[in-house]
């Protein structure tokens, strides 16, 4: 029997599924997971001025010393930047200002993008001994990490409450404690490729037994001009839209943080997405 708790956090519908019959345990696990989601949201959301990210951005230009947990996340982002040769970059969010993903054909001109590029690039950031200094005007955005991190951490909290099987699903970033009580798989409906309008595949059933699964991509967020579709994922090195990016990439990995960065990187490969995933040997589903 699966007992489910629903709540909304981090701009997404969230759920916790607990495979047991004891409602008290399920409620306790649900509360622990929700508390962890809210803790991480309030700490790392860029929309909250009092969050660590909000303060870092407001204090751009000033060195700030971060607490231990924030250091770990920034270190993680820095290492992801290095391992991906600069493709994964938490400073690239500022490029949103040039793009408006409203389904119209408004495409920013090169000058607009060029004006923003001096504010983009992890290499322009000073990160040393736990002290982070952004250049004035720069911003960071843990959008590609924080929700995934929250899912992984929430699962850990759940396991600390009880050893019953648990599934955590934060807006499509999901992870499980292991197989269900009967040894079977979890079955979840995800909005992986939500309606492009002309497609039939509005959602997908996903089955999972261990580890985590995340999905990158959202078909609604694109700009189409002269028959060419510009995806919402931007190359932080050029500021330009990735050409030939798939509509969605779903990755299976032991943890959400790992799967999340991998799915972002796969999207950034554009037409080379499938080849990249094959070369990296990860379990993935690509929807074009």
């Amino acid at each position: 029997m699966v007992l489910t708790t629903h709540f909304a956090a981090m701009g997404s519908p969230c759920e916790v599924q607990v495979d047991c019959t004891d409602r008290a345990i399920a409620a306790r696990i649900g509360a622990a997971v929700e508390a962890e989601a809210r803790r991480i949201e309030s700490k790392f959301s860029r929309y909250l001025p009092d969050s660590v990210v909000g303060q870092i951005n407001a204090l751009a230009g000033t060195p700030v010393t971060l607490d231990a947990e924030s250091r770990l996340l920034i270190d993680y982002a820095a290492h992801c930047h290095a391992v991906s040769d600069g493709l994964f970059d938490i400073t690239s969010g500022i490029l949103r200002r040039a793009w408006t993903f409203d389904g119209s054909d408004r495409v920013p001109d090169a000058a607009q993008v060029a004006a923003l590029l001096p504010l983009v690039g992890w290499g322009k950031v000073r990160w040393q001994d736990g002290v982070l200094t952004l250049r004035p005007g720069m911003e960071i955005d843990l959008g590609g990490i924080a929700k995934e991190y929250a899912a992984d951490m929430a699962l850990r909290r759940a396991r600390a409450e009880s050893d019953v099987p648990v599934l955590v699903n934060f807006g499509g970033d999901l992870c499980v404690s292991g197989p269900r009580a009967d040894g079977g798989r979890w079955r979840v409906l995800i909005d992986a490729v939500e309606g492009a309008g002309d497609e039939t595949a509005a959602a997908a059933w996903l089955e999972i037994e261990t580890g985590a699964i995340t999905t990158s991509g959202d078909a609604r967020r694109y700009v189409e001009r002269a028959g060419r579709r510009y995806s919402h994922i931007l190359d932080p090195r050029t500021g330009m839209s990735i050409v030939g990016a798939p509509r969605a990439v779903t990755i299976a990995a032991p943890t959400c943080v790992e799967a999340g960065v991998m799915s972002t990187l796969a999207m950034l490969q554009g037409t080379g997405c499938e080849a990249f995933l094959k070369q990296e040997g990860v379990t993935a589903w690509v929807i074009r």
Partner: protein
Amino acid sequence: MQLNQPDAPPLRKLGRVAAGLSMLSANLLGASAALAQNDSDGEPQIALMKEPAPGPETFVYDASVLFYKESGSRVQAIEPVFTIQNYQADGSIISGSFTFDSLTGATPNGATPSTLDQTFNSIVREKTTSTQVTSTGASGGGTVTTIPGTAYAKSTYSVPANTLPLASFHDHRFAGTGGYSWLTNPDTRLNAGLGASVERDYTSFTGNFGIARDLNQKNTTLSLAINLEEDISRPYNGTPAPFEDLNSQIGGGHDTRTTYGVLAGVSQTLTRFWITQINLNLSGSKGYQSDPYRVLSVVDPTSGGPLNYLFENRPRNRTRESAYWGNKLALGPTVADVSVRYYHDTWGINSLTTEVSEQVPLGGSVYIKPLYRHYHQSAANFFAYYLVSSSALPAFASSDSRLSRFSADTIGGKIGVRVFKTGEFYIEGESYRQTGARTVAGAPGQLSGLDLFSGVHATSVMTGLRLRM
């Protein structure tokens, strides 16, 4: 559509990127879990920095106005200050400031009060009478009359009985500074600065040069600085000779003073929440140190009444030493500053300043910073409220309350609001009160019953806007 995990756990023979991510992710979650167990909730999420310096290619503008008022119709000042700093891409910093003060009011002329009205006659050079500082007395009307056939005029003002004699004045001051600071290597910063301050009767030039070196991954900073100051005093009525009578025709022109100082400091990050700093300062000055407008009453040894007034005389040499210990502590979301300063000089003044302030965020973009400061000093060994006519003149004497033994308490506060994303609007207020001995044991005659202390109670308000762009 259905996405199924493969039946067998996937054989994870990963590529370079995936393998790297896999290891990083495991480390992240492992370390985070360890943190959660250690319960780091009490730790502030953002801690203070040793050098909260803006990033490169930034301008910081700060415009403020200080309003200062002493109670009892004493000094009033309005002081707008404008500063600009430019942080350049190579780490160098160009800075400049400009100040224009307007001071009006009255300041003690140094004489003791008396149970009778007192009249002060001073002889001033006639050509300067239009700018004569004491052209009107604060406590009574003043007149200036030409002495026929001479280049001098007589300036007269009266002070009522039982009143501390004050001389009124009005002055302006322009001051400017410029500085340049640059890195010779990533850990060594040099800085040089020049400054000038001009009043109608006083001009001051300063220069400084310093070096600061970061060690130990920037957790330690050593600094050494030297500074020079040259002051030129051009009193309206000329520079009086030591203990010259107020009524005499003053012959002295301008006089100068030269000051050399050296400062050595070390700043150390002890923990992420505690930065401490120690500064040692030594300076020596040579030259004219007296106040050219300040007199002392010479009183009758029996009645205590004033007989005449002599210009004060301070030693021409002064060596100062001070030690400062400051601490910055992050306590939860607040930042506390706690400091103590000990000072000693060859005039015999020893002082101790203790100060505590705490910056408290009020949520949103507002913070408050209450402040308390206590100061106590011993008197200079030549301080005297008055001179007695029957005693020989001492080598030096001054009745300036700033050289007397006194305590001062300052209570203040600051409110800052973040505006325009990178700016701050602030208002600071301070109330400063000096307390000291009002009477002198064994004072002759009438002086035993009069309040001789001329310390001040001042209120200041400063408001400003700081913008970083």
